[in-house]
């Protein structure tokens, strides 16, 4: 099953490489990874998505917790949560294509953030599934370049991950 694990860790050099290293060392896979400092400059928040059965996920969270830099973590997929990913895509758009692309962008509530006479740069955010669907709607032959931010997430309701 796909899981979103959110980690609060010391904002120290080397901390990120320890997390990434753990995954390759123990043969766990990382589907996506995002990391940035938090409102407390001494902490970073790292969100990663991974795939595994319950046993594997348990080992992943236990081993992450063992890392000295990791302060706290939560498996967001255990409860209801909001997940978002940002997509930037350059799309070939000439002639009749221009309107068609624009319609798709509207349907997916995206924005065109840059234009030339031949292309649009489009920004869409949402769940990874939604972004997949948008890319599919555009069709392979119109896509020139894709950048995805990786998943970020936060629990719904009053639950918070903090120290």
């Amino acid at each position: 099953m796909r899981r979103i694990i959110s980690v609060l860790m010391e904002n120290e050099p080397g901390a990120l490489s320890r997390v990434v290293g753990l995954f390759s060392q123990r043969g766990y896979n990382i589907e996506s990874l995002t990391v940035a400092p938090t409102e407390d400059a001494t902490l970073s928040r790292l969100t990663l998505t991974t795939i595994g059965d319950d046993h594997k996920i348990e080992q992943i969270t236990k081993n992450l917790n063992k890392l000295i830099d990791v302060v706290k973590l939560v498996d967001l997929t255990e409860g209801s949560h909001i997940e978002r990913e940002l997509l930037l895509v350059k799309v070939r758009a000439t002639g009749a294509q221009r309107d068609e692309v624009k319609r798709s962008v509207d349907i997916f509530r995206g924005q065109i953030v840059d234009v030339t006479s031949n292309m649009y740069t489009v920004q869409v955010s949402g769940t990874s599934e939604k972004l997949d669907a948008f890319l599919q709607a555009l069709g392979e032959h119109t896509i020139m370049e894709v950048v995805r931010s990786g998943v970020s997430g936060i629990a719904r309701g009053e639950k918070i991950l903090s120290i």
Partner: protein
Amino acid sequence: MELLSGGDMLVRALQDEGVELIFGYPGGSALHIYDAIFRQKGIKHLLVRHEQGATHSADGYARATGKTGVVLVTSGPGATNAITGIATAYMDSIPMVVISGQVPSDKIGEDAFQETDMVGCSRPIVKHSFLVKKAEEIPEVVKKAFYIASTGRPGPVVIDIPKDVTNPVDRYPYAYPEKLRMRSYTPAGKGHTGQIRKAVALLLSAKRPVIYAGGGVVQGDGSELLTELAQRLNFPVTNTLMGLGAYPGTDKRFLGMLGMHGTFEANTAMHHADVILAVGARFDDRVTNTPNKFCPGAKVIHIDVDPASISKTITADVPIVGTVQSVLKEMLEMLKASKEMPDQSAIVDWWRQIDDWRERHGLYTAPRYRTDGDMLMPQEVISAVHQITNGDAYVTSDVGQHQMFAAQYYLFDKPRRWINSGGLGTMGFGLPAALGVKAAHPDAEVVCVTGEGSIQMCIQELSTATQYNLPVKILCLNNQALGMVKQWQEMQYEGRLSNSVYEESLPDFIKLAEAYGHLGMKIEHRDELHGKLAEAFAIKDRTVFIDVYVDPSEHVYPMQVMPNGSMRDMWLSKTERT
């Protein structure tokens, strides 16, 4: 406040941490630190002959004392030479702090002379690491390093220090922190009382119990409590390779080691057990054999300080995260308070069954090796050493058949006496580890059981033994082959001995030992074994290299059947299978 340079600060912090001994080797990036060592008293530094030796010596010191071993090396090759020893300590959960010099901060990343990314190289084999950026950080980093290395599940910690940080010119106020607060590291302490209660109920309901104790009991100083528990309940105990000595080896409740080369009675009892109490053991693949065939009828209680060890390969029915000391103490208190005891007639039947297994194939009820041949058998050599040392020596070992024979036939009654590389299986460990033990316990008898293969991997440390007058006995079970490899080739590769023999290229170990200033002794025949060993062990002030020629055709048995075997599937000899 006192003003100190980075180098002096480091040495002072080590003193304030209570460090007595450092094992190390100097070089460019570490020279400021070495100068600081020269200008102090209090900490003794032992110059090894190879950085791998330094790590193994510090490791042996740590295993024998329970204190954290300390290593100091230079950058680049000094640091990479230490890697094998760090990995060895990591796999066996040994507390160690490794300080490595690094190129100056402004050169890092420039492929500078003797630059390697030590934090990166060592990352998968350390519990944690630090790259020190400013001299002012040194006291706190040292404090944290020792705290992390020695608490929870112990392990090695690297402190990498760029040369400019230790320079003698710049001075800073020094104070060693008294307390530490680490919001991201809180090692487990007491176990969950509800879980312990469940475990106690399960133990009381057991009809065919086995206590499976590992290295965590030795390292966590839980032997006395474990022994009390086993004796109170009259339960059989088996130890892992790392756990030998956690329960007295000569006690009647001891079944011997379990696992790949475990005894018939230990492995068979495990297979038939209804309740297994695993204490400070990690269900290693050398123990469980095929996991889905492991102990089919058993409920498993697992006590471990590291939650990641629990239900990793074998699912625990009653997981308990906590230190062996605190959990066993609480268990005993509950048992005493409840006054209940397990079903005595069931336990008596269980013992009857176990005694029958012992009679049939046990290692300690009759010799299970040939005694009619001309050649000395490795097993009888170990037994003779056990006898001569009253079972009270510190025995370090290298890796191979000799290691297994030592584990099987030197019955350890006390913890911290058996010092070997189990998890990584590092040939070359034995001699430097023995020197570390001897440095910690100068009056103790220290024996390194080795093979003619392994000893050549750190033989240079014979010179360290000379320099610091660390007289140990080196017992080389010389079978003129990489015996353990050869055994596998004979069993699984139709006897094709690919690169496991040396073709007359072995050195004369007697002369070699003498060249380093030690004594050498050769033993070839049964009738000279006891006499010569007695002679060797009577010598207390010299290192003695005892080269014992043993039957090269001997294999280690029992040996679990692999792959796809269960715990009880074993070869008992070259021809006999369970």
